[in-house]
């Protein structure tokens, strides 16, 4: 541009400076000249067959545009032009010859498609070097949709570069299906980009279509198109690269990239990224905010590598992450047995744990493999398992279908302990919840005459920190050291249902060592602030009672199921599951992984209007390998269920720490 300005000054000083009119006419000539230079490389694409409607919009079935990028018949265009999945693609060259085309590959990151026709010696455009593309410079958007004889022209300027997470050039020339797949060119007739619909918010193939002709148009830089070409020519479909990290916070321009979760079996996990790592640079570009990182990652394909500089406890580290196209959902491998729970004790580490099998689920892999209640688990595939935690970590490394060998200590017929080996073929989720499960025997039966602690039973209290009210029920066993489950009951709006819930679940609370607590909403219904109230309440109860962190669940009914599931989805480190009675989840659960081992229990009242919707929800959750159980009850869902329902809920809570 500096050079151009110098020229302008010279022009202005010259005696025979052109008039404005002359300049404008000269400009028009240049527009036409530039267009005619690239026109032989712009082809018309027609499609036959395919869907009528995609993503709720009518599929384009008129002619579209492509650009020849390889003289031996390679044509690149916008993936948008094929969203209807046509059965036949036809190319008409500017000289009138027609060819059938094959869709060789698509690029779902940059929304490109590569076509091949059986032709040779085709004219290819000159590619504008990336450094020549300047904001404010003239940009012409060309297409072949309207007329086969001459490309259509829309004129504007380059509005911005590095748009849509580093992927695109933005222009105010009119971009629409009339020229999607066509080139954006400069005044020298060089191709600066390939016109595509794009949206910073969405990744679907039609995203950005709603902006057509609005003055907000996008083009993939021609240099990037050419760079992607060899892989696409080899038939590789290019996809956005994933590393498998989610971050604390979601303010792209505010929050620093602090690792909140690392997806199990993801490249980030393989590269050793840990929770609380802070990313400070990516591909040598300094990163301060989430948005900076998205900008670097947004340009990368699966198969590319990402170099990260991270701070771990203020120590700098460097890792290289090979990006992947998809991270498979974690399907927790399960055997179907429970261990005896050890008492909660402040100095648990000093006492060696014994891993005694408490129950083996009927018809489970554990039962088929020959595991028996009372067995002590010593090792898995020869690796010793000193604690329940280490057993879980070892099993988490197995996939459904694997056959780990369990080394057990078992009493033989002569009541002598002996070592036994069994092989168990692990299965995936969801594992059916057993219909029956023996209740937990107390360490020591409490009998009269002993120092029986006074059972607390039902209580009504206020939380010290905020004065908020809650009711609760603690079984007599909750005064001991046996770990207890906890149900946090979030009542539907306007009705605490205290009596009904307690009546339904009291027997199970006693039998299966479960505490019940019912925070009360202030005013009519729950508010977002109540998320913190519930969290504080759970913390308080954990300090007062022997509560097992692995069995804290939230329960809601009808209009409170969304809040209940929301809490659990948001804080999988605190809550292990949700009981949803006659209502849906709040959106999708987070990807299940060893750090978010969520269990969902959906109660479907057969006579309710929501029953069909809930059944569909269950099906979709099963597909994601969620640990989901369903209980069907009669009625329309207005009554709180009890009886057999409560028994099943009791068993369900009692088995969510199963292996």
């Amino acid at each position, binding site marked *: *541009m500096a*050079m*151009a*300005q110098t*020229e*302008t000054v010279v*022009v202005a000083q010259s005696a025979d400076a*052109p008039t*404005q*009119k002359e*300049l*404008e006419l*000269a*400009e*028009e*000539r*240049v*527009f*036409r000249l530039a*267009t005619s230079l690239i026109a032989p490389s712009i082809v018309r694409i*027609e*499609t*036959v*067959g*395919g869907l*009528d409607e995609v993503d709720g*919009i009518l*599929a*384009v*079935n*008129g*002619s579209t545009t492509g650009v020849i990028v390889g003289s031996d018949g390679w044509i690149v265009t916008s993936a948008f032009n094929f969203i209807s999945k046509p059965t*036949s693609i*036809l190319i008409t060259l500017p000289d009138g010859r*027609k*060819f*059938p085309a*094959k869709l060789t590959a698509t690029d779902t990151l940059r929304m490109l498609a590569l076509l091949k026709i*059986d032709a040779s010696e085709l004219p290819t455009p000159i590619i504008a070097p990336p450094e020549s593309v300047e904001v*404010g*410079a*003239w940009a012409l958007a060309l297409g072949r*949709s*309207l*007329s086969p004889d*001459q*490309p*259509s*022209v*829309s*004129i504007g*300027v380059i509005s911005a570069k590095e748009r849509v997470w580093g992927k695109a050039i933005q222009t105010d*020339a*009119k971009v*629409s*299906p*009339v020229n999607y797949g066509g080139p954006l060119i400069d*005044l*020298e007739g060089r191709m600066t980009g390939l016109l595509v619909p794009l949206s910073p918010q969405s990744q679907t193939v039609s995203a950005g279509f709603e902006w057509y*002709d609005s003055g907000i148009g996008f083009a993939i830089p021609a240099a990037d198109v050419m760079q992607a070409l060899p892989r696409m020519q080899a038939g590789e479909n290019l996809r956005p690269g994933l590393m498998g990290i989610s971050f604390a916070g979601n303010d792209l321009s505010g929050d620093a990239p602090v690792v909140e979760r690392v997806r199990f079996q993801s490249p980030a996990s393989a590269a050793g990224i840990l929770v609380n790592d802070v990313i400070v640079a990516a591909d040598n570009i300094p990163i301060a905010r989430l948005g900076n990182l998205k900008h670097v990652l947004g340009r990368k394909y699966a198969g590319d590598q990402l170099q990260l500089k991270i701070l771990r406890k203020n120590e700098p580290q460097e890792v290289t992450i090979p990006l992947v196209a998809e991270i498979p959902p974690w399907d927790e491998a399960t055997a179907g047995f429970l261990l005896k729970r050890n008492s909660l004790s402040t100095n648990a580490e000093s006492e060696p744990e014994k891993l005694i099998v408490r129950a083996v689920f009927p018809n489970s892999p554990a039962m088929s493999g020959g595991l028996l209640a009372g067995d002590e688990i010593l090792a898995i595939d020869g690796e010793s398992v000193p604690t329940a935690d280490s057993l879980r970590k070892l099993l988490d490394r197995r996939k459904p279908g694997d056959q780990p060998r369990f080394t057990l200590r078992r009493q033989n017929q002569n009541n002598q302990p002996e070592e036994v080996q069994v092989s168990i073929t692990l299965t995936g989720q969801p594992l059916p919840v057993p219909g029956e499960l023996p209740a937990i025997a107390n360490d020591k039966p409490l009998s009269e005459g002993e120092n029986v602690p006074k059972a607390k039973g039902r209580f009504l209290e206020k939380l010290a920190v905020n004065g908020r009210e809650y009711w609760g029920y603690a079984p007599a066993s909750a005064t001991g050291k046996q770990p207890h489950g906890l149900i946090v009951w979030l009542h539907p709006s306007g009705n605490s249902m205290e009596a009904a819930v307690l009546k339904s679940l009291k027997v199970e609370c006693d039998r299966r060592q479960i505490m019940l607590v019912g925070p009360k909403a202030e005013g009519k219904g729950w508010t977002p602030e109540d998320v913190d109230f519930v969290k504080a309440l759970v913390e308080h109860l954990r300090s007062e009672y022997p509560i097992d962190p692995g069995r804290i669940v939230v329960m809601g009914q009808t209009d409170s199921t969304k809040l209940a599931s929301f809490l659990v989805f948001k804080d999988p480190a605190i809550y292990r599951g949700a009981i949803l009675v006659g209502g849906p989840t709040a959106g999708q659960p987070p990807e299940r992984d060893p750090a978010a081992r969520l269990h969902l229990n959906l109660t479907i009242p057969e006579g309710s209007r929501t029953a069909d919707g809930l059944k569909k929800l269950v099906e979709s959750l099963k597909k994601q390998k969620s640990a989901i159980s369903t209980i069907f009850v009669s009625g329309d869902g207005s009554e709180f269920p009890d009886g057999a329902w409560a028994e099943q809920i009791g068993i369900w809570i009692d088995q969510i720490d199963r292996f």
Partner: protein
Amino acid sequence: MSICFLLCGSQLLPAADDEMIAEVQPKLVKIFGAGGLRNLYSYNTGFLISSEGHIATIWNHVLDQNAVTVILHDGRRYEGKVLGAEPGLDLAIVKIDETQLEHFEIGDPSSGSPFPLAAPGTRIVAFSNMFKVATGDEPVSVIQGVIAARTKLPTRRGAYESSFPGEVYVIDAITNNPGAGGGIVTTVDGRLLGMIGKEVKNADLNTWVNYAIPISHLQQAMTEIMTGNFRSSKNTDDDKKPAGQVPLFHSTDFGIVMLPNVVPRTPAYVDRILPGSAAEVAGLKPNDLILFVGDELIQSCGEFLDQIGRLESGGKVKLIVRRENVLITTELPIPRKSRPPAKPLR
């Protein structure tokens, strides 16, 4: 490339200057008429084509009541009467009682067109009463752009609702707005190029089309209506067959049996070729996908049968089919067949 260097500095210069706009604005009028019901807008744009108050505008629902209100650029207000209309060209002429008005010269069409066609890439300025932003003595709105293409709006399958069958200017300025119809597109030096068309959507591409009808197409009808020599609407749409026409040919007349047409977009695959037929002689085979009849792209079985039905007796028809991954061009003779008399429509 020296021209490029000259231009880079001139980017911010306006495309059209004040003088030109000041010259054109008095020739435009705002028209208010019927509408308002069913959420239809009730205003158009028009442009003066004689000093005695002849105004060209778009033929649409706004003119339904025959009498309209016309407001000049300076706020003068008149009752206008619809003098005549040519629905085939989307054109109407409204007359107000006034003299010595500034206007565009339409000229005598028989003495050659003073309106040469502009090429794609030509800069344009569009003048219109879009969204009736201009009220009273305010001039109409001006926007700028370029001619994007010169093309026929494909009327096949009713993709466009426009009735205008000729070549139009598609422009890259957004003129497809309520009230813009009947406005004008000029060159940057104020020469009249076209009349802004109706609000229509291109169903093939699912997008709105911004277009203007070249004045050279309207010239004759304008003159005829003004001079009172206008004859009733000609059938300008040669492509269209009268409604209710029975198709003259079926694919079996050529020996082609198609796969059953089950869904709207069933591709046009050949099922069987009748022995001894023209199709067999031409070398067509089962499983050929028919892609073109003449120059018309065939996207479905239904379209193929439709195109075959429209063929005229005698002569030849070109078919392009895809077999495996090769395009094959064939020519079939069209049998002689006389058309049954069309049933009168009731």
